[in-house]
């Protein structure tokens, strides 16, 4: 599992390979077989192994053969997922791994995983507007498009999730799963309100709030000039004096999101860029289970 640490994976330059390693490593680590789909189409029988759920035993076949078999199903692609990746300048922050790099790898991994399960996956790259929109497809070679788009784009511009949601909603008619990767550096009330609008349209939403460890701890030392990565405003502060106030303000900001998403059952995960990718994927699968 050490292989899934962001620091280790950073050495692998190809996004495709990185995504494969993450997903395969993640799957290998699971003791339980992954849930392959929630629309059922019989594929074949397989022998029962200890530990398999009893309720999935084909009793009719047992009656004929006096052996335990389980039915294996082919997953139907009726899930349409969109990966919304914030590519604003603020996502470029990070000492070793930027938030964008982390989010991009995570998005690629999820795309790979979803396509492995024959789900259709789309991609939206945005800052204050939608920069790149790739519709959801379930073909295996669709991954190439997605990874290509993810690789090509570098952080720029300001964040405006509200505006992006406003632009995105008319484009997507089908009930979909939206997976948002962003640092959400915007007025929380505005973001929550717009995401709730999406939720009201029967879409499922998972929010991965990408944070950097330094951003959380504010562990800078010495009088410094801080430049806002999005609007280039520069200020002079002493971080040690500011730390306490900063943290409390940040906590308030994060709890606003946490509390704001809870009533509308939006899955909100704070992801720090030093957390292994598999933990994030687990969060996703948990969500998938609930959706099924």
């Amino acid at each position, binding site marked *: 599992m050490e292989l899934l640490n962001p620091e280790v994976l950073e050495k692998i330059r190809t996004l495709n390979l990185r995504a494969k390693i993450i997903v395969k490593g993640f799957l290998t680590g699971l003791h339980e077989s992954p849930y392959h789909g929630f629309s059922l189409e019989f594929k074949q029988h397989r022998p029962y192994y200890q530990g398999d759920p009893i309720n999935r035993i084909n009793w009719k076949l047992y009656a004929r053969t006096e052996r335990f078999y389980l039915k294996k199903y082919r997953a139907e692609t009726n899930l349409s997922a969109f990966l919304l990746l914030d590519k604003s300048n603020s*996502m*470029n922050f990070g000492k070793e791994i930027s938030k964008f790099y982390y989010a991009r790898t995570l998005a690629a991994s999820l795309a790979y995983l979803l396509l492995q399960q024959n789900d259709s996956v789309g991609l939206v790259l945005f800052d204050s507007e939608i920069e790149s929109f790739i519709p959801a497809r379930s073909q295996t070679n669709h991954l190439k498009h997605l990874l290509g788009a993810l690789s090509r784009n570098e952080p720029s511009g300001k964040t405006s999730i509200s505006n992006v949601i406003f632009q995105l909603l008319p484009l997507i008619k089908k009930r979909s799963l939206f997976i948002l990767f962003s*640092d959400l550096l915007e007025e929380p009330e505005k973001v929550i309100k717009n995401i709730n609008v999406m939720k009201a349209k029967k879409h499922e939403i998972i929010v991965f709030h990408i944070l*950097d460890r330094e951003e959380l701890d504010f562990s800078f030392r010495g009088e*410094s*000039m801080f430049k806002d990565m999005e609007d280039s*405003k*520069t200020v002079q502060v002493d971080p040690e004096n500011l730390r306490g106030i900063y943290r409390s303000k940040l906590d308030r900001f994060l709890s606003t999101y946490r509390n704001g998403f809870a009533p509308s059952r939006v899955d909100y995960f704070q992801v720090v860029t030093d957390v292994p990718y598999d933990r994030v994927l687990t969060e996703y699968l948990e969500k998938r289970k609930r959706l099924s």
Partner: protein
Amino acid sequence: MSFSSFFLLLPLIAVPIIMHFISRKQLKRTDFPTLLFFVKSEMRLVRWFRLKELLLLITRVFLLLLLILAAANLKIPFKFFDRAEVLIVDGSPSMEKFEMGRKNAFIVPTISGIPRFSYYLKKHPVGVLITDVQRNGFSEIIKKGGKFPGIRVKRENFPAGNMGIVAASSSPAFEGEEFVVNFKILNEYKKNKKTILLLKASDRIIKEENVILKVGDNLMSFDIKLPKGIFAFSLELEDKEGFLFDNKFYFVVNVHEKRNIYVLSDSFSARLMAALSHSYFRVKWGRELADVNGDFFFACDMSEKDISGLLQSTVPGIVCVQGKTNTLISNKISNKISTVIERSVFDKLLCPEGLSEIPVRYNCLITEGTEFLYFENGDPFLNRIKNHLILPISLEKNDLSLHPVFIPFLFGLINFLSDEMIHSSNIRMDEEIIIESSFKPGIIAPEGITYEPTRVGQNIYVFTETKECGFYKITDGKTVKGLVAVNTHPTESKIESLSEEEIIFVFGKQNLFNGVNFFLVIAFLCFVLSVFLERKIFRIK
């Protein structure tokens, strides 16, 4: 230190400038996703920071500059600060003890001998006043001390003793005859003091004596014999412990030329001859008018009319009338002369329009009539016949020749008629020089500056600015026409009158405002400001 030190230290100003640029380079720059969580009060926009940083730099440079200025001990070149430089010193003569300090001091002028402390202290409220406080006006300053901001009083004791020449005079001096110079020396020490006396006449030492002065007043004299002329005398003694100002006394002695008088009379009048012979004149007696010569003549037992036809054209004469009708009138004159002799007013006789100003001195008004001069009551004073002035006097009945003022008056009159008017007098510093002159006089003070005395009346001029002891020359612009010796008042020397009042120094807050301390005070303020700015810029609480 000086300007050279200032320029040597000046490069130090580069230190804060270099520090400023180094610290600027060392400041970390961090890109951060958002400044949303920064508290406004805790963050400063960089442009404000730059401004404050610049202000800090200026403050530091200014601080260093002030320290350099303080170290270089430079004078502040602005007029505003002159007030701190003012040193007000009592200009009265007893303050000559502080002669050295006076060079750089502003000396309070005196008017009629009274220093104008109040006026100048109001004008220069911060400064140093040094005075011995014996003059009028200072006690008022002490009382009002609190009303002069920045002044505080410090008392210091007076010298333990003093020796000073308080007076000097001479008997009438005539050429070829010995005259006496008398002087009074005060010894204020509690024991006899040995000293050297030095008498100079026109800068030439004519007497030098070692003397022992007993306690108190010492009357001493020198016998002097000098040729005709006016001499500037100075008498000096040595006393380093006491005041210096009274160690020298100035006086003027006019050594007169003797006048020749011819007494024309049938009979020899021994009394008249004896009276005239004393000091002032050389007297000759004769019976014939044709023999008359000399500077003046007396004609006894003759009427004016009798003599008028016989008078020579050059020699003036005085007709002495005996037993005639105007005897009564003549008798009165001697009383009137006694007032005249006090001061020389003879020049007024030359300008009749000025006669109206005479009565105060003559006790009655003199007017011009058919005869040359009358008293207002009709008594003749001087008659003019041809080119001669006739003074009708009686010699026998009233014994005019023995009148104490007659001979000096006669001498003055002859000098006047001979046109040999020389002004010489001895005054004190708190007195004014009064000059009666037909020309506009100039006064050359001892320090060499020429002053113009104030005209206060017809041919009367007054000069009050006798700030220094010494000789004041009266000049018509070309030649010296007179000499006035000015000395301090004798009470200045009396230490017992001063000991009660002591010397008092009144100090202002000059330490706060002189160059070095002023720079240091401003530097301290700059330091406080720079610390404040530094805390504001580099530390946040």
